[in-house]
Structures are given as structure tokens and as C-alpha cells.
């Protein structure tokens, strides 16, 4: 058996593995798609039918007219973009401070950051809610955006990354008379595009799909977000699964697009992050 044949066999085995695993991963997603194209009486049959007969494209139209879909979409997009940009800025600045700038109390403060991730959100929701009531921010965009601008997780992630950037670069810059802000701006940020893209995609997903907080803090239809809108399809007595799946698929698309877009940076990103303790 020559090398080429051996290679071919190995590749084929690999491909078989990949296909089998893909099938296991993809089934619920396929169910989403097929259900979104069915009539109501075709969804719950046994055995389940994977091909809708007939194909109902109008479910997608219904999905967007059921609640003010485009308004919610606009709201969610606005909120998410603000949060992503905000987090990238605050976390990179904070992460850099923790990684490279020496100031008293730095390490204790950092441990405090990590520790706060260990408190379940359910018990901090009410205090924050009351704070917002006091600020008259209930049912405003501020209530959703402002808390999202900060993240202990994001600071942690970027700090890990910044720790791996060679100090020599920074020292060279200091010798050249560069200020700390200059280092941040001219050296750290450009080298961190992959890590920033990584944090960006995680933040995007989190903000886009965030449900509980917008639900509690927003009241008016004018400001509501998509994930809350999706939950409107689920009633106490019935759930219109086909339109729900159509709407869910639509809501999913931007996340997939963002993932694909970030893919280029994504993989390289965590490589350079090093992730050393």
C-alpha cells in the first residue's frame, strides 16, 4: 500500500467521522427549519416527518407580522451594537490596566472581578432593577445598554491576551517616548484584533439573545427586543411552533453571519491569547 492510498483511506475515515458527528449536531437545527415550513397539523406526528408537504413559506411572513418584528429587530440591533462597541472599549482599557499597568491593589481587585462571576444573576437582578427605578431608567434603552457595557468576563479574557504581548515592544515604545495611552493605542490594540474579534462575537451573541433582563426592564413595545418577541409565540394554552421556528431562524441568521465574519479572526484570536494563568 503506497502512501497515497494510505492517505486516502485515512481521509475517508476522517470524513466518515465528521459526517456522523455533524448529523448528531445538526438534527435540532434541521427540525427548526423543517418545522418552520410546515402547517400546524404536520408538526407533531409519529413518526416525525422530515419533509414538509406542502412547503409553507408564508410562515416566515406570519412570523414577521405577529409582533412588530422590524421594530424589535431595530431595537435589538441598536442595543447590541452599542454593547459590543462599549464592551470592546471598556474591557480592553480595563484589561490593559490589569495586565500591564502597576498600581496598588491591582491583583486583589482583579480577583474581586473574577469572584463576582460566581454569583448567580437571579439575586442581583432585583437590586439593579431598584437602582434603575431610582434613576428613572425603567423602560428606556439606557437600562438595557448601560449594564451591558461592562463585563468582568471580557476584562478577564482580554487581560489574558495582553499578558502574552512581548514586553520588549512596549519597552521599545517607552524608550521612544511613547505615553501609556500611546502604547495602548498604537501597539496593543492593533496586535489584539483577533482577541477583540473573539470578545466581539461572544458579546454579540450574549446581547442579541439576552432575554430575562430586557423582559424585566423594558415595558413598551417600542423598545422591546427580539428574544422577548420570540417568547410571545409561546402561550399558556398553545404555541404556534411553525411560526415560532420561522421567527427563531430569522433571529438566528445575524448570529451565524457574525460568527462567519469573525471566523477569520476567531481562530487565530485565541491562539495568541495564550491563556496563561
Amino acid at each position, binding site marked *: 500500500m503506497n502512501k497515497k492510498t494510505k492517505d486516502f483511506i485515512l481521509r475517508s475515515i476522517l470524513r466518515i467521522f*465528521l459526517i456522523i458527528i455533524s448529523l448528531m449536531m445538526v438534527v435540532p437545527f434541521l427540525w427548526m427549519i423543517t418545522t418552520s415550513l410546515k402547517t400546524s397539523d404536520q408538526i407533531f406526528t409519529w413518526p416525525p416527518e422530515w419533509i414538509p408537504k406542502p412547503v409553507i413559506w408564508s410562515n416566515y411572513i406570519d412570523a414577521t407580522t405577529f409582533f412588530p418584528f422590524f421594530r424589535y429587530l431595530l431595537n435589538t440591533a441598536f442595543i447590541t451594537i452599542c454593547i459590543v462597541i462599549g464592551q470592546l472599549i471598556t474591557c480592553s482599557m480595563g484589561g490593559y490596566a490589569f495586565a500591564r499597568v502597576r498600581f496598588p491593589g491591582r491583583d486583589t481587585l482583579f480577583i474581586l472581578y*473574577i469572584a463576582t462571576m460566581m454569583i*448567580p444573576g437571579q439575586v442581583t437582578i432585583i437590586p439593579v432593577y431598584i437602582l434603575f427605578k431610582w434613576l428613572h431608567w425603567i423602560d428606556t434603552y439606557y437600562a438595557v445598554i448601560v449594564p451591558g457595557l461592562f463585563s468582568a468576563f471580557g476584562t478577564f479574557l482580554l487581560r489574558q491576551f495582553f499578558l502574552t504581548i512581548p514586553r520588549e515592544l512596549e519597552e521599545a515604545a517607552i524608550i521612544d517616548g511613547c*505615553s501609556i*495611552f500611546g502604547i495602548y493605542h498604537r501597539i496593543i490594540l492593533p496586535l489584539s484584533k483577533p482577541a477583540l474579534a473573539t470578545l466581539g462575537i461572544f458579546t454579540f451573541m450574549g446581547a442579541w439573545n439576552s432575554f430575562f433582563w430586557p423582559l424585566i426592564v423594558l415595558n413598551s413595545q417600542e423598545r422591546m427586543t427580539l428574544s422577548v418577541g420570540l417568547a410571545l409565540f409561546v402561550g399558556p394554552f398553545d404555541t404556534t411552533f411553525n411560526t415560532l421556528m420561522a421567527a427563531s431562524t430569522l433571529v*438566528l441568521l445575524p448570529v451565524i453571519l457574525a460568527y*462567519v465574519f469573525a471566523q477569520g479572526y476567531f481562530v487565530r*484570536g485565541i491562539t495568541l491569547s495564550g491563556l496563561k494563568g
Partner: protein
Amino acid sequence: MHDNKRKRRKIRGFSKVGSIEARWGYFFLLPNIIGFLTFTLIPVAVSLFLSLCRYDILTPARFVGLLNYSRLLRDSYNLNALKNTLYYTLGVIPSGIIISLFLAILVNQKLKEIVLYRALFFLPVITSMVAVSVVWAWLYDPVNGYINYILRWFGIDGPNWLGSTTWAMPAIIIMSVWKGLGFNMVIYLAALQGIPEQLYEAARIDGAGWWAQFRHITLPMVSPTTFFVLIMSVIGSFQVFDQAYIMTRGGPAEATTTMVYQIYVNAFQYFRMGYASAIAWLLFFIILGASLFQIKFQKRWVFYE
């Protein structure tokens, strides 16, 4: 000598250059810290205070001292939830990490269409939870479900997964592992891509087989990543809620009730925010303990350059 200078600065922190740096440090940290204090630290401190009160959200809080804490560990619902949460964590973490590393290796191979597989493996992470629970409820159905159907081929009489106090938690564990694989896989994938090819070549020249290469190159080189994934996974899995709530509502007979489920029920159904906060703080100390343990232990097996 260079290093000694750095060390001294770090310890003292107030040398001339140090104080300029310190100011910059505060400036950089300012936006981050304001947010952290306002939206994280203060609410956390308030929740600590609330844990010492009786508070039903609709009327003002009443201070009761350590009453909630004395109840905590006598409450059999909590002990049960703690047991279930530990069970869940131990089930999800090892298998999740090992399998996602394996998947990362798989999608790190040089095939033209490998990018497609990377996207497909990530799908469970972003698929709607409704879709996931409907499909998995089908899979787990004791009569018609596909899992028991396959088990029958092997002559095994599959259990009543979601209706059995023994098998409900394993069922949730399996589903959660499945859902989380893509996430850790991507993190590992990046780590793998950072391993220099030369190391493998050198090993091959020395006659090392693929297992030896894996053990002596791959594993140590990704160990920092493993550490990160481990810490974040522990923090996450101790706080599991959605799956248990959606698939089994904590049942059957409290077999899948988790700590956060307890917090949720006490806070938003019994209107006992104070007690719920105390449960949250108990959970916090457990997670903190587990994390500190891992941090201490890491020196043994995490390999830094």
C-alpha cells in the same frame, strides 16, 4: 537584574515612575470600574445584605441576621439541589472537555471542506432552546424515542429517561454536553493552531507515534487552555438552570432540581428574596472553593512556556 527591578517596583508600587503609571492605571480602569462598581459590585453587596433579611420584593426588607443561613443546610430541598448540582458538574465537565478537545483535533485537519464542519459543530450552541428541548424530548421518549430504539438493537431495554429519578439527570447531562461542545471546541481549536508544527516534525523524526505525540506535545501545549476552560466551565455548570427548568421542571420528584433552580423558586415564586440570596451566597462560596482548589492544583499539570 532587569527582573529584580521589576519585582521591586511591583511590590512597592510607589516609585516615581510607578506613581505616574498608577495614575494611568486608574484612568484606564475608570470606565470599567465605574460599571463594575455600579452594576456588579454594589448589587452583589446588596444581595449579601438581603441575605440577612426577609424580603418579599413588594414590601421593604426586614433585617433578621443569620436566620436564612441557619436554615440553609437544614433545608432538604437545598441539600438535594446541592447533590444534583454536584452530580451535574461532575458529569458535564470531564466528558465535555475531553470530547471537545477530540472534536477540535478532528476539525484541525487539513481538508478543504473543514470550515463547513467547524460551523456545523457550532450549531448546537446557537440553536433555539425550544427546538433543542422538543427534539431531545423525542429522543428520550421511553416508548418511541430514538435512543431507546437504538439501545434495543443491542438488546438493552432503555429506561424511562426523563421520568426516572435515576436517569433524568444523566439525560440532562448528555444533552448539556452535546449543546456545549461547539463552544469549547472553538477555544481548543485556536490553541491547537498555535502549536508550532516543528515540534511535531521533530517528534516524528525521533520516531514517536501519534499517541506519543499527543501525550507529549499536544496535551502539554494546550494545558493553559484546558485550565481556562476548566475554570469557566466550573463556574458555569454550578449555575445550571435552563436545561433542568425547561426539560423536566426539576422533576421527576426533585431529581433534577439544581441550586439556581432553588434560588429561582424561592425568589420569584415564594417571594423569599432574602433566603434566595443566602442560597446564592452558599453557591458562591462553593464555586470559589472549587476555583481556588483548581488554581492551587494547576501548578502540577499546567505547562507554561
